[in-house]
């Protein structure tokens, strides 16, 4: 056994270079307008369309150690939050380039590590005022089931960073002129009493704003209470204006409408988000059914969401249903017709439904031989026995976690018994809770107490779906009173798009879920990143002047690194800001309003200058966002759209994605050697061995 060790050259850090080039592939996935990629398996000739970084990484050959760390990090973000992976990947790439730039300027690694993490921490604090709280009863407030049929066609993102094509506004204006003047814009649909009642606790705000108009504006006293401004008439003169603007600030509102929240978080994918939103409402109503007179506030339970993919079926069939929808063989059609419209008794099997199946941890009985020459067909005996049990219990439906024996399937079909599997654990769990069934591992455990009742089975959209499209299978709906489970039926005429479609749905679901868990969202559309950039710019300018050293946030307080940070801070912070700048440029470029990335970059630069120049970046940003919205409204959309023309970002997943991206970069940055253990001498490429040291 040989152990080899590869030294990583300091200036041209291989690890960082690898990280930067690996992440390059995910560039086009950023922002609301994504360009998909085709993944083609050379051997299998299968292809899949994707615009999720996780799918891409799964299909890439990541044999380098950095590649594996990247995959691990993205996977971990996915496991914990289900969203934010594209941001993580892009920033990891952008910041590894930034770290390389710092290395080329001969900045000590410890300084880069310390200043970058300090910079990120400071930015995370800075963006807190852009948070918008959700009202705790936001889901309850959806009694009004208004729909916005035009949302599907609305492809604009209300952000000042995305230039709305002027011809779009022209067109909308024309349309408005032609149509009747019935929809006159009326702005204050909200009663004014609501404003005054809510402004009571923010009395101290104007003072803070006057004292410190530039740094850490409302971070301490105004964290969760910050609201979005309506300040359409906000006039930007110098300091005095903060007084008036803060009054406007009081008048801003919390986000208290689920539709508004969902649209804001959809980031252009209205169709997936509409399904998610419907799923939340559906679950909400079911909770009310199950727990009557329950005062506990409703919590969206994402584990009780299931998806059913129907490839090859038109998009318009996508919908959300309460209960469990799945595909089963077309041979069951007659049985289901018979079982329809009657309450069924159900049993739940937590495992495979096979003769030779044993529970996890059962190691067998050693060599056992039965003293008989011709052993009868054991499988047949077993099937007979199972059927006897099921018939005696008068069960008509069996839901199985694992695989089901084919013989059993067939025999059950003859006796009008429906077996469904594999079904996920969460589905079984929910049916157990609502029907009173007890999950068992073996059918021999079944007794009267284990059987659940009052389950309904029906064919779903029988006759409407062409069985050919779903490869000889039919969709069925299983329901029970009070079931929390909601199934989203996802359809796509293009089979290769199916997986991407499902991924989109889950991303939207997790976004909404985390917004509801956090009870707050960010003003989206790049506002958070712009604020970070302008904050970093402020820090860079400040550090040019002599500032008192604050070592409180650092780990290395005794080393010279702490004292020499002043010297390098501007350069490192600039590199960090460069990462966000590249992020924003890519988002803007991907939306297609700029013809090149450099044009996008210049556009961001100009916008940033205006933001920083305004003296109060937060208010400027809010003003700009409102301007865009009123610009769109003036073009003739109905005025009630004003509320839904917001774009939001999730808070915790975004902050975590930033942190994880930087953590990964710093982990790789601080690595100076790669040690390959246990490799045989011959396994190492002769080309590689030159740069390897053998021990």
């Amino acid at each position, binding site marked *: *056994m040989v*152990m*080899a060790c590869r030294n990583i050259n300091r200036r041209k850090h291989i690890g960082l270079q690898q990280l930067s080039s690996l992440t390059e592939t995910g560039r086009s996935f950023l922002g609301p307008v994504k360009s998909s990629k085709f993944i083609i398996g050379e051997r299998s000739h299968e292809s899949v369309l994707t615009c999720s970084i996780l799918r891409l990484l799964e299909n890439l050959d990541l044999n380098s150690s950095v590649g594996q*760390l990247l995959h*691990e*990090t993205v996977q*971990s973000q996915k*496991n*914990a939050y289900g969203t934010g992976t594209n941001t993580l990947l892009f920033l990891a790439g952008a910041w590894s380039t930034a770290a390389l730039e710092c290395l080329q300027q001969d900045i*000590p*690694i410890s300084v880069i*590590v310390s200043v970058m*993490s300090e910079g990120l*921490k400071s930015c995370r604090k800075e963006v807190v005022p852009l948070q918008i709280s959700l009202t705790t009863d936001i889901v309850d407030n959806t009694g009004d089931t208004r729909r916005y049929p035009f949302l599907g066609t609305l492809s604009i993102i209300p952000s000042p960073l995305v230039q709305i094509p002027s011809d779009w506004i022209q067109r909308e204006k024309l349309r408005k002129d032609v149509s009747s003047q019935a929809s006159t814009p009326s702005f204050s649909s909200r009663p004014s009493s609501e404003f005054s009642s809510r402004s009571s606790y923010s009395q101290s705000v104007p003072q803070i704003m006057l004292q410190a108009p530039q740094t850490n504006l409302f971070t301490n006293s105004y964290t969760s209470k910050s609201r979005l401004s309506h300040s359409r008439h906000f006039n930007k003169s110098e300091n005095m204006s903060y007084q008036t603007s803060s009054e406007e600030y009081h008048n801003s509102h919390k986000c208290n409408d689920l539709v508004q929240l969902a649209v804001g978080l959809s980031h252009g994918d209205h169709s997936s988000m509409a399904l998610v939103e419907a799923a939340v409402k559906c679950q909400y109503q079911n909770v009310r059914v199950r727990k009557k007179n329950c005062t506990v506030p409703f919590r969206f339970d994402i584990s009780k969401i299931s998806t059913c993919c129907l490839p090859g079926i038109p998009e318009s069939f996508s919908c959300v249903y309460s209960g469990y929808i799945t595909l089963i063989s077309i041979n069951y059609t007659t049985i289901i017709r018979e079982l329809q419209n009657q309450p069924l008794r159900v049993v739940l099997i*937590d495992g495979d439904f096979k003769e030779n199946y044993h*529970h*996890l*941890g*059962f*190691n*067998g*009985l*050693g*060599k*056992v*031989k*039965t*003293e*008989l020459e011709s*052993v009868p067909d054991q499988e047949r005996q077993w099937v007979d026995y199972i059927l006897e049990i099921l018939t005696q219990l008068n069960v008509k439906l069996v839901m199985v976690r694992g695989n089901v024996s084919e013989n059993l399937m067939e025999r059950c079909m003859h006796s009008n018994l429906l077996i469904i599997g594999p079904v996920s654990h969460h589905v079984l*769990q929910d049916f*157990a809770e609502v029907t009173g069934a007890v999950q*068992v*591992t*073996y059918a*021999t*455990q079944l007794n009267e107490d284990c059987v659940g009742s009052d389950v309904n089975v029906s064919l779903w959209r029988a006759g409407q779906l062409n069985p050919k499209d779903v490869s000889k299978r039919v969709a069925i709906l299983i329901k029970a009173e009070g079931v929390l489970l909601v199934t989203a039926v996802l359809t796509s005429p293009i089979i290769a798009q199916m997986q991407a479609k499902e991924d989109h749905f889950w991303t939207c679901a997790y976004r909404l879920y985390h917004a509801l868990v956090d009870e707050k969202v960010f003003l989206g559309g790049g506002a958070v990143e712009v604020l970070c950039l302008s904050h970093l710019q402020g820090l860079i300018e400040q550090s040019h002047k002599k500032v008192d050293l604050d070592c409180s*946030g650092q*780990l*290395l*307080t*005794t*080393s*010279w690194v702490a*004292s020499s940070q002043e010297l390098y801070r501007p350069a490192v912070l600039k590199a960090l800001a460069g990462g966000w700048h590249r992020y924003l440029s890519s988002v803007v470029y991907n939306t297609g309003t700029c013809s090149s990335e450099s044009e996008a970059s210049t556009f961001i630069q100009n916008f940033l200058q205006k933001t920083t120049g305004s003296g109060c970046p937060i208010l400027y940003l809010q003003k700009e966002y409102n301007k865009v919205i009123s610009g769109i409204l003036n073009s003739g959309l109905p005025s009630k759209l004003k509320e839904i023309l917001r774009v939001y970002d999730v808070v915790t997943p975004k902050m*975590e994605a930033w942190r*994880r991206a930087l953590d990964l970069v*710093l*982990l790789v940055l*601080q*690595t*100076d*050697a*790669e*040690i*390959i*253990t*246990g490799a045989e001498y011959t*396994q190492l490429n002769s080309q590689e061995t030159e740069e390897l040291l053998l*021990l």
Partner: protein
Amino acid sequence: MSRVKAKKPSLCTYELLTKDIITKSISVLREIVSSCYGPSGRLKQLHNGVGGSVCTTSSSSSLFSNLSVIHPILKILTTSVQNHVSRFSDCGLFTAILCFNLVEHFQRLNLSSATVIKISKHLLSLCIDYLNSEICGCRISVDFSNLKTLLCLVQSILTSKPACLLNKKEADHISTLILKAFLLTIPEKATDHAILGKSIIIPLKDERVMDSTVLPGIVIEMPEVQLIKCPIKKLPSDALKVALFCISLSGDISDPGEGTLVISYGVSLENAILDQLLNLGNQLINDHVNVVVCQKVIHPALKQYLHQHHIITIDRVGISLMEPLGEMTGAQPIGSLNFISSTSYGYVKDLCTANFGSKHYFHLIPNDSSVCSLLLCNRNETSWNELKLACQTAQHVLQLTIREPLALLGGGCTETHLACFLRNKVASVPECVLKVNDCTEIEYKIVADAFCSALQSVACSLEHDKGKILIDRKYGHFWSIQPDFPANVKWQDLVLKCGCGLLGNQEDLNWCFLPSIHSFSLQNASIQQVTNSTDHLTLDCFTAKLHGLQVAVETASLILDLSYIIEDKN
């Protein structure tokens, strides 16, 4: 047919340390180890090159357990460091670096190895005596009534491992938790010899570090949500009766042995075993047991039977939890299906379910027991592993410190201080010492100089960004300054604090560059008073470092003493 092959002759190598390949291997390994040292140490990516998991680390235990060195000399060194780490957890890198430095420094001396070994052992005894004496200027006593020093000790360990990826706030949080967990393991009713309880680290990966927490009792992950439908019927004494099984209750034959079992038709072995299990279940029900905990798997049918009788089952807890479970509940692990003695049951105060992150847990709450669980979170696998190691080290160090309530100054100050002390001490060597060691004064001084240089270069290994190292002539502490310092600036303006954080840039410290050959007498000012006024100190575990020093010197002597290696090449 067996093939007879001639035996290869054994291979004998001599004059080991002058061999090129060996010196090169030693210097590569020294480079690897010393570049890991300290809070700004560089990390190593360990992987097998064929797609196995990647471990990013700078800790000696994961480094040495993954390294597969072939050369016997390197093996001696890695094995003795691993032995040290398994006993003391801390100061593994220190031991390894010092040992490498000693070997390299001694090897350059043109003296017989016997002389070098003798003198270095004498020097070691001088060090040990000094560190153990009351006048020692680089150790402080740890006051257990004041948590500040303990917190510094824990923080020093955590911050010395950058792969944990903690910021200041997170490091503070974890340090507090470790200390809290440690305090929970101290039994409330102290008898003559109190036995410390246990704190168990429960993994919770993918979550934020700040979500980590400490709970009294034991937290066990539920593989899947288990519904507890009915309230548990408690005993009159307001406790729950616990049965703890260390055998598998999954219904298989644990050791079927060789050969085939022949059964007659119609007999089901499986059912026979299940009947036996259900009988066991009946006994548990009759004995009014509330909770059944099993190290391995419980048969689903038995589980169902017990659930029907309102008994909660927790299975697959794993061997590592068995000892703390026994300790906490007072239960004897049951290893038989047939007979359960009524004395083998234990008790807990309560059992509840809890959610952390997206996972579900059982929480067993003890009556009065010194067992607690530390739910440790970190964002990804590799940083979690590193954090876990650091936490285990910190827990161990706290245990060592309660036995010997002393700590050494960290951040390189102990090494430089000790070197200064030695240089001062050997300025005049008594005749009797030379006689005992059978050497001349010059020989003695050469070895002592090499010994001190080796100690000092351990301290210098803390610097990884080309900074320059200074020491002060008053206390002999370690200071670092930037590499490209302006010429006409006073050192006082360049330095900030010494390595351990005890001293600030006072005027009278009289700094000089580290590879200094001059000896000067140190002030034996009591540092205990200064300690109380400083906010943050970098501290090292006294016991571990003292032992590490001994191991390093003795291993270096052993390596020097080797003259032949005979390898069996068959």
